Each structure stands twice: as C-alpha cells, then as structure tokens.
C-alpha cells in the first residue's frame, strides 16, 4: 500500500490537473460561442453562392464546353483529399474522427485502384496521416498564426487546389471536415467540391430566367473558383466550432473523472491514516500491558 505521503502527493497532482481541465473547458466554452456565431453568420454567403451557381448551371451543364470545375476533367483516376483538422490537441475524438473517415475513404480508393493525393490542413491531421500515407501527402498547410478562421486563409487553400486542378494533377477533390451539429455531436463529413455535384443538391425552384452580364460562361468561370474557396471556408468555420465543442465535452469528462479519482484517493488516504493510528494505539496498549 502506498504511503500516506505518496497518497497526499497524488491527490494534490490530480487536483491540479483538474484545475487545468476545468479552465480549458471554460475557455473552450467561451470560444465555442464565438465560433458558433461565426459559423452561423458565414452560412448565408455560401448558401447564396450555391443558389446562384445552381441557377446558372442548369442551362450550361449539358454543353460540351462547360467549365471543367463543374463538369470534371472526364476521368476519375486521381483523387485529391483535403483533410482538415485542428492545430491543437486535447479535443477528444475530434481529429481521430476525421482521420477515420478519411482513412476509410482512402481504403476504398486503393481497393478501386485509384490514385490518391492528400493535402492536410492543420498539423494534427498531418501528424496522424504521415505515418501511413507519408508519401501521398503533397502539402501541409497550417494556420497556427491566425487566431480565427478567416476567409483569406481559406482562399489560399482554394487557390492552391485550383492551381493543381488546372495543372491536371488530379480529377476529383474531396474535403474532409467535421460538421458542427451540437456540443456533443459533430459529424465527420466528406464533401466533393470538384467537380461540383449539382445534380444531387437541392434546387431553389425558380422559373425566372436571368439576364447575364457578361454571358453565363464567363460568370461561371469567375464564380466557380470563388465557390471552392467559399466551401473550404465554410468547412473551416464548421471545423472550428466542432473543435471547440469537442474540446469542451472532452474537458468536461476529464474534469469529472479527475473529481472521481480525487474522491477515491481521499477515501484511501483516510483509511490508511486510520489504519496507521489504530496500529499505533495497539502498539501503545500492548506495550502498556506488558509492563
């Protein structure tokens, strides 16, 4: 049995860990509110963007000269996966969930004999993926310096993806991120952004015909790259909110577990203290009796 001193030390250390997790939980809760707000504020933009593109693409999709970002390159040999994770740990299953989702997708690809390329956004994903898929990772981007997710960063990723697409380095692009549902539920998602999947999306049913200035092709060519950045930005916002939510519930659990452990250790401490006292008493009594 551990000595009294050891137990005392352990209780103190668990308590200080609990303080840390509690503080982290509160910080995450504060950040979560902000992240959630900005995720909600960011939604109208991507929704409107989507609507406009849907309206535009209706007429243009069947044409042969439809923009490649919309119709695809004609093949589906090389897949580019953009795996978006956080830069910090201690957020429960947040990163592993994305990685798991991504890995199952990778396995499917290799079963179908497709080529794979990976871009990781956020250092945690890179850490986990480089062990197995190190040779497939073509780039790693991390935004440790920027405090909040901002459009400028997303645009950088978007431009890089488009550049690689135009250089015909891949045919299909999928982004992986966590969609924020609520504090305890985040859904890992895989979303295809190139070619854009317009057929399965909900349409804003409007029979209105638009006037275009300049013509449809040019607008689409201008709009589609922007849409990619927008989708990536949306994913980033969802990810930030998910990360904080996940961290908050993980830290809440940790705090509770630490509390349980302190209770258990305190009981053990008291028991051994009593046992020691009893032992001393017995020694004194039996010593007195022998006189």
């Amino acid at each position, binding site marked *: 049995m551990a000595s009294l001193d050891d137990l005392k030390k352990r209780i103190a250390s668990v308590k200080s860990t609990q303080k840390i997790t509690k503080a982290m939980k509160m910080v995450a809760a504060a950040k979560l509110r902000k992240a959630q707000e*900005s995720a909600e*504020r*960011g939604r*109208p*933009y*991507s929704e*409107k*963007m989507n609507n*406009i593109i849907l*309206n*535009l693409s209706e007429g243009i999709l069947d044409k042969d000269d439809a923009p490649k970002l919309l119709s695809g390159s004609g093949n589906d040999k090389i897949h580019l996966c953009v795996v978006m994770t956080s830069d910090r740990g201690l957020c429960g299953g947040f990163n592993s969930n994305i990685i798991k989702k991504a890995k199952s997708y990778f396995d499917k690809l290799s079963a179908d004999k497709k080529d794979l390329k990976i871009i990781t956004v956020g250092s945690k994903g890179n850490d986990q993926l480089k062990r197995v898929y190190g040779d497939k990772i073509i780039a790693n981007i991390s935004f440790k310096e920027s405090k909040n997710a*901002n*459009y400028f960063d*997303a*645009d950088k990723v978007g431009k890089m993806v488009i550049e690689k697409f135009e250089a015909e380095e891949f045919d299909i692009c999928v982004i992986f991120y966590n969609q924020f549902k609520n504090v305890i539920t985040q859904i890992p998602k895989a979303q295809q952004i190139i070619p854009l999947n317009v057929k399965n999306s909900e349409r804003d049913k*409007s029979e*209105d*015909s*638009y*006037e*275009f*200035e*300049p013509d449809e092709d040019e*607008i689409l060519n*201008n*709009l589609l790259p*922007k849409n990619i*950045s*927008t989708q990536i*930005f949306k994913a980033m916002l969802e990810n930030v909110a998910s990360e904080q939510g996940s961290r908050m519930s993980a830290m809440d659990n940790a705090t509770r577990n630490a509390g349980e452990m302190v209770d258990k250790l305190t009981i053990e401490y008291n028991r051994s203290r009593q046992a020691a006292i009893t032992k001393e008493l017995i020694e004194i009594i039996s010593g007195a009796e022998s006189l």
Partner: protein
Amino acid sequence: MSDEFKIEIVNPEKYFLSKENVTEVVVPAFEGEMGILKDHISIISFLKPGIITVYSKSGEDKFYVEDGIVEFKNNNLSVLTSSIFNLKELEKSKLQDLLKEAEEESNNSEINDQSKYLVDQKIEVLKSLN
C-alpha cells in the same frame, strides 16, 4: 406604390448590410456601372473594384468593393463579396495600405492581362478616394 426594394450585402464572415428600403443602387458591374431600380429584370453579374452606392430616403451609403457577384431577383438584391469596406469607416491609413498592395501587384511582371486590368481599376478607384 412605393419604389423601394431590399438589399443584402453578404461577405464570408457575416451579413454586412441588410436594408429594406433602398430606392436605387449603383454597382460597379464588370462591363460598366449599373444602376438598379425597383422591378429591374432578374440579373446576375459580377463586380470589378469600385464603389457601391446605396440610395435610400434617409440618405446614401457608399462602399468600396474589390470583387463580388450581384444577383437581383424579385426585388431582392444580393451582393456577395469577399472584401468590402464602408467608406465612412475606411481610414486613410487602410486606404494607403490597399493602394500600396495593389501597386505592388500591378508591378509584378507575371500578372496576366485580366488581373492586370482589375488591379489597374483598383488603383484608379483607390486614388480617386484619396
């Protein structure tokens, strides 16, 4: 009958502006300035760097945009843009920064014709604001 319609300006971070009672909006469309009044035909166009002017009964607001898309439908004008500044709040120093950035970009020799055109536009507008 009122001749007012609704405008929404959205940037990736938030609703930048939402106003129910505007009477006229002038946007710097790609092929020239375009004034929009109520019951305009449905239109989609994109923007070049310039000034959006929003007129309403209570006065006019001016915004500087660098790019974006406008959609007008059912008396609802949506402007999507990634960089927009309210001229009232835009400080001189920020303006100088933007101008410097644009000039640097313009001097970049690898720039293609279309972006060169846009950057030159941007410089022109920024200079006129100074």
